[in-house]
């Protein structure tokens, strides 16, 4: 997997107890067009506090352009931004 750390548009949902789950996201491809990816499976979720900065990390898997691919998403709590971290 390669580190991208690219900001993405995201739709996510919160459960009653505050658990945050990503649902689908949009990312610009090389031709500057948006690709929409629906999150297929979340295999692992964790929280990191590196440098005192809280981030939720999700390891996910989806079908992108007909291929099943694994990737990692990050949500930065302080800025409410979603990133495609690695793919």
């Amino acid at each position, binding site marked *: 997997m390669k*580190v*991208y*750390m690219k900001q993405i548009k995201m739709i996510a949902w919160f459960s009653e107890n505050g658990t945050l789950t990503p649902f689908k996201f949009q990312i610009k491809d090389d031709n500057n067009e948006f690709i929409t990816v629906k999150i297929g499976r979340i295999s692992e979720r964790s929280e*990191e*506090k*590196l*440098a*005192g*900065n809280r*981030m939720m990390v999700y390891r996910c898997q989806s079908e992108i352009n007909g291929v099943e691919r694994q990737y990692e998403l990050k949500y930065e709590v302080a800025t409410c931004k979603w*990133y495609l*971290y690695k793919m």
Partner: protein
Amino acid sequence: MNDRIIMHVDANSAFLSWSTVYALQHGGTVDYREIPSIVGGNQATRHGIVLAKSIPAKKYGIQTGEPVVQALRKCPSLVVIPPEYHVYMQCSSAMLEILKDYSDRIQVFSIDEVFLDYTGMEKVLGDPVKVAHHIKDRIKKELGFTVSIGISTNKLLAKMASDLKKPDAVTTLYREEIPFKMWKLNVRDLYMVGAATEAKLMKMGIYTIGDLANTEVEYLRYKFKSWGEVLWCYANGIENSEVKPEGEIPYVKGIGNSCTIHFDVEDRETAHKVLLSLVETVGMRLRHGNFCCRLVQVSIKTNELKSYSHQRKFFVPTDCTNAIYEEACRLFDEAWKGEPIRNLGVRVSELCGNDFVQLSMLEKDYEKQRKIDKAIDGIRMKFGSLSVFRAGFLYSRLSPLQGGIVEDFPVMTSIL
């Protein structure tokens, strides 16, 4: 007092490793801790000094506090990272949060150093050395940076201990370990010994902390007055100040701010404006601590790095921005010899409480001014420090408040 257990937690190359961890978290690929790198101020605004250095940079002889230009001459491939104070604040508070799990008596000594009073906690959490290792590993795992922890029976020895082994280490320095762990060190390594004291001690033939510890205390007192006795005590590991939890105001002797201006100041009006911006922050700090001051000092550093200062006493103690400003301008006018100015500083001292103030019939009545100061402080506390400022600063290229970096974290202090 002997059975106190004090830990001193010190983040290794704090600013540098904090910047690195933050960058790595945001997809950075270079670990600045492993290459020659520094955190340095902006050279364009002339704040270009080394604030922190990596361990590989240390090997090139780069020192904290030296100009970035000089550091680049020592190592041309050096990577210079700009400081990010908001990240440092975040790291510092996160470290504090973790430490709070181990004791309720915690003193924030500076942005990257914390004292922790572990006395009595060994009954709950166990052996201090084991716990220190646990703290160190937990900070490394959760926050991503390394710390050095010193353990001893007082704050001075704990601080000396954390300096002995870096990075990512736990070191003890109990009283019986002083002769073989601390005494062999250069006298400069002792807390509070700077270049001036070192030079004087060298002249007296005192080279190591051990030499100092074994010198007659009377002789030191003769040479350095009361300071000599403090030095002797420190060299012998004698120090018994409390770990002061947050919120308690430490004993303050004076409050001062200074700033390097991003251009050379050559006229009186601009210099007065800079003084005003400094007095604004000094005044706020003074009132925040509920102090009044009796002495004002203005210091000037020229573009050739020559420094001089001038000071005067007030008849009546004051905490009023305008009163201090007027005096600072008078002092400046008397002292300034007309050369281009690089750095200006204002310092107030001889502090006393502000609850009873002697009024004077011969002085200007500052009662109204004090009310306005209070109102302005309130507004700034609530809406940010730049919510109100003096119109004179409009289009002046100068910041209306100067001195200090962020909020209340001291970067360095000399009071244990």
